[in-house]
C-alpha cells in the first residue's frame, strides 16, 4: 500500500518527464540553455564636462549595439551625466561620434535617456539596482527585472583602485557595488548579470563581488590606466576609449541570430591594441563562458513555443451570458483642483521643531572647554572683562 504511492508518483513523474524530453528537440534545447526570458541593460556614464566626451560616446555606442540587437528602450536604463550632443562646445550639434572623421554617429534618432545630467548620482544608481525607488518614479526609470532576466551593466568614467567617480563630486566603492548586487540576488532580481567597466584600474571594481551568476569584464587591471583611442581634430576631444572602441567594432559584427560566445568577447582588445590588459572574472558564473552567447546579454532573443492547444468558445453561450445588465456606478466628475491637496501644501506652516538642550558629546565638549578656560584664566579676571 505504502509502496504503491511513491511508485505511482514516480510513474507519473517518469511519463511527464519522458513527454517533456521527447518534445524538446535540438533547436529548442539551444533556446532553453540559459534559462532567461527577458533582457535588461543598465548603461551608466558617470563623468561630466566637455573633455569627457569619450565617456558619453562609450555609453552611447553600447546603447546603440544593445538596441540594434533587440533590447527595447523600455528595458534599457540609460544614465548620462552630461549632454554632449547639445553641448554649446559641440561643433556638430545633435551628434556624438565614435570614429574620427565622423563616420559613426552613435547618438542616433531615437535615443532615450532615462537619467540625465545631475540625476546620475550614486544614490540613484543604487536605487535603480536595488529597486528601492520612491513610488512616484516613472516606469522608464525603473529596473523591473525578475528572476528570469539577464542584465547587462556597463559603467564608464574615471575610476581608481576600488572606486568609480560620479559627477566629479562623489564616488561609488567596489564594496557598495558588491553589496548592491547581493541585494539584487537576494530578491532574485536577475538570472545572470554581465558587468562591464571601462575606467582606469577597472578590475578593482569587480574584485569584491560575491553573489552568484555574475560575469565581469574590465578594460584594465589594477595599477593600469585605460587609454583613450583617438582624438578628432574637428571636434577637439578624444572620441572613445580604446576598450569600448574595439568592443563596438566586435559588436558591429554580431547580429541577433549569431552564435558568437563570451570567449570571443574576452579576446577583444589585446594588449597590443589596448595598451592596458583587459581582465575578466567568471568564477561566480555557473555556465561555461564558451556556452554563453553574446546575444544572451546584448540582445534579446526570446524563447518561443508554437501554440498547439486551443480552447473552444461557444459564441451563443457568450451572448446569453452578456445580456445580464452591468450596473455602472455613476461617478461624479472630479475637478482637478479638488483631487490634489494643493491648498494644504501651499499654506503649510513650517513645523515647529522643539528645542532640546544639547546633550551627549557636544555637551561634554563644551563643558570641557569652558572649564579649562576658566581654570586657566581664573574667575577673578572675569570682572576685568565684563
Amino acid at each position: 500500500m505504502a509502496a504503491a504511492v511513491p511508485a505511482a508518483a514516480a510513474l507519473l513523474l517518469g511519463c511527464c518527464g519522458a513527454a517533456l524530453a521527447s518534445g524538446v528537440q535540438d533547436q529548442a534545447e539551444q533556446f532553453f540553455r540559459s534559462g532567461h526570458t527577458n533582457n535588461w541593460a543598465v548603461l551608466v556614464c558617470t563623468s561630466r564636462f566637455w573633455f569627457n566626451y569619450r565617456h558619453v560616446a562609450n555609453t552611447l555606442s553600447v546603447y546603440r549595439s544593445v538596441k540594434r540587437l533587440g533590447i527595447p528602450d523600455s528595458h534599457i536604463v540609460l544614465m548620462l551625466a552630461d549632454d554632449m550632443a547639445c553641448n554649446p562646445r559641440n561643433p556638430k550639434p545633435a551628434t556624438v561620434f565614435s570614429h574620427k572623421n565622423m563616420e559613426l554617429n552613435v547618438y542616433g534618432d531615437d535615443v532615450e535617456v532615462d537619467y540625465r545630467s545631475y540625476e546620475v548620482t550614486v544614490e540613484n544608481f543604487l536605487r535603480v539596482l536595488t529597486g528601492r525607488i520612491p513610488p512616484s518614479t516613472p516606469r522608464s526609470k525603473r529596473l523591473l527585472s525578475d528572476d528570469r532576466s539577464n542584465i547587462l551593466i556597463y559603467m564608464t568614467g574615471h575610476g581608481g583602485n576600488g572606486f568609480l567617480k560620479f559627477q566629479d563630486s562623489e564616488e561609488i566603492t567596489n564594496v557598495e557595488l558588491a553589496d548592491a548586487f547581493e541585494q539584487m540576488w537576494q530578491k532574485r532580481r536577475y538570472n545572470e548579470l554581465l558587468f562591464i567597466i571601462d575606467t582606469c584600474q577597472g578590475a578593482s571594481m569587480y574584485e569584491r563581488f560575491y553573489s552568484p551568476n555574475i560575469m565581469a569584464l574590465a578594460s584594465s587591471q589594477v595599477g593600469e590606466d585605460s587609454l583613450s583611442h583617438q582624438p578628432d581634430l574637428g571636434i577637439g576631444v578624444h572620441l572613445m576609449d580604446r576598450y569600448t572602441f574595439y568592443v563596438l567594432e566586435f559588436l558591429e559584427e554580431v547580429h541577433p541570430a549569431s552564435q558568437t560566445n563570451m570567449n570571443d568577447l574576452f579576446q577583444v582588445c589585446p594588449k597590443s591594441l589596448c595598451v592596458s590588459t583587459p581582465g575578466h572574472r567568471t568564477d561566480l558564473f555557473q555556465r561555461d563562458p564558451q556556452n554563453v552567447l553574446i546575444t544572451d546579454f546584448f540582445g534579446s532573443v526570446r524563447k518561443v513555443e508554437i501554440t498547439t492547444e486551443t480552447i473552444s468558445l461557444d459564441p451563443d453561450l457568450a451572448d446569453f451570458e452578456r445580456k445580464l445588465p452591468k450596473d455602472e456606478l455613476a461617478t461624479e466628475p472630479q475637478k482637478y483642483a479638488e483631487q490634489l491637496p494643493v491648498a494644504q501644501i501651499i499654506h503649510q506652516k513650517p513645523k515647529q521643531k522643539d528645542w532640546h538642550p544639547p546633550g551627549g558629546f557636544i555637551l561634554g565638549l563644551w563643558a570641557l572647554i569652558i572649564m579649562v578656560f576658566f581654570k586657566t584664566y581664573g574667575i577673578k579676571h572675569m570682572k576685568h572683562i565684563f
Partner: protein
Amino acid sequence: QFQLAVPVAVVFSPGSVPGDLPRPLPFRDVQEMEIPVNLRTTVTTRYETIYRSTTAQEEAALEAATAREADAALHPLQDASLGSLTLYVVPETSSLLPQGISVYVGKHRSALVRAGGGLAALRARLQQLTQVMSFTVSSITAALSDRVPNGQLSPDARRHLKSSLGYEITFSLLNPDPKSHAVDWDIEDAVNRYVQPVLDKLSLVANFSVDSQILYYAVLGVTPRFDKESSSFLLSAHSLPHVINPVEARLGSSAASLYPVLNFLLYVPERSHSPLYIQDKDGAPASTNAFHSPRWGGIMVYNVEAPASPQASLPLHVEVDMVRVMEVFLAQLRLLFGLSREELPPEFLLESPGNEGLADWELDRLLWAHTVENIATVSTTLTSLAQLLDKIGNIVIKDDVASEVYRAVASAQSAVAELAVGHLHSAFQASKEAVTSSERAFFDPSLLHLLYFPDDQKFAIYIPLFLPMAVPILLSLAKIVRETRQRKKEPTKVD
C-alpha cells in the same frame, strides 16, 4: 517547512466498492508524502481522504446518460470549497464513461473514476488523479524554483508567470499594409464576451486590466520564405524568436502599469506576403498559426482570403473573426499561466471548461502553486531584510516599515496554518497580503544602505577636526590636575 493538506472525498457508488477494503465505509484515511526541495525546505502533503458511499441524490445524479450531465447534476451536491476534491467511483461496467476511458475529470472539482482491479489499483489511480487536480511534485518545485539547487530543475520549469498581484493584458492588432487591408476588429465586444468571463474566474488570483491598440505599418523582424509547393509564405520555427523584438519597441508596454504585461498580438500579413503560415520544428504548418513566448505573451497570424476577383478595390475590408482569435489567445493565456492539458495519460478524459476558460480544479492548481510561491517569497524577502539589517547596524527602521514587517510575518504564519488545514482560499488571501506587506517593507526607499555611514567613516571625518582642537584642552587639563595635586601636597602658607 510547508504542510499542504488536500481534503478529498472518495464516494463509491453501488456496485463499485472493491472487495478488499480495510474498514467498512465510511472511514477516513490520511496519506502523507514528503517532497524535499532543498536542505532546509521540505513540503509535506497530506491527503485527508474520506471514503463513503453515495447518497440517494448522488445515485440519482449518476444515473444520467453521459458523464457531462452526471457532472452537472453532481455539482450542487458537492462541497465546493476551494482546494477540496470529490471523486466518484463508478462500477467497472458503467456506461457513463466511454470505452477506453477510465477517468473523467469534470469542469468543477469532481471526477468520475472507473473501478476495477482491486483497492491497490484504485488507490494508485486516485492518487494520480488527485495529483493532477491539485498539484504535482513538479508544480510545487517549480513554484519554489529559487530554492531548488541549480541543475535539478529543467530550464523550462521556470517559464510560467510569476505570482503577482495583478497583470495587465494588452491586445494589439498589427496591420503592416493598411493600403491593402482595412482591418476591423470588434475588440471591445470580444473582450466583454469571451475574455471577461475568463478574467472573472481568475479574479481570485489577481487583478487584471485589459487594453487594446491598433498599430499600423508595424512589420515583423523577419522576412518569410516563399514555399512553391504550397504557394504560401512560411515562417520557420527558428526565426520566430527574432520576430518579437522590433515590434516590442512600438507596443508601448512601458506606459502601462507596474504589473507584468501580457501582450497578445494579431498580425495581418501584407498582401504581398499572404498567406503566411508558421512552421513548427517538423516543417508542418502550425494548426493555430500562433506562437507564444513565456512571460511575454503571444502572436497569432491571421491570414486574409485573397479577393476572388483581382480587380477588387483596395483596401479590402477585413472583419476579423474574433471567436477564432480569442480561442487562440485564451489558450495562450492558459499556457502562460502554466495550465496545460497535454501532459496527461491517455485514459483521462477532460471536460472542456467552455466559455469560462478554465475548470475549477485548474484554478485550484494555480492557487496551490501561487500560495506556495508567495509564502516562499515572503520568507526569502524577510530573511534578506534581516540580513541587511545585521550587516548595517545603524540603519533606522521607520515605524511604518516595522508595522509592514509585523503584518507580513503574521499573514505568512496564518497562510501556513491555513494550508496545513486545507483551507486554500483563506491561505491564498493571507499569502497575498503577506507578499504585499513584505514587498512594501523591503522596497521602502528609506532603506538604502548608502544613507548610513559605517563607523570608520565617521571617525575618519571627525578625528582631523577635533584632534587638533583637543590637544591644547587635554594638555591644560593635565596641567590643572597636576597643580591641584601639588597644592594638596604643599602645606598652605599661612601668614
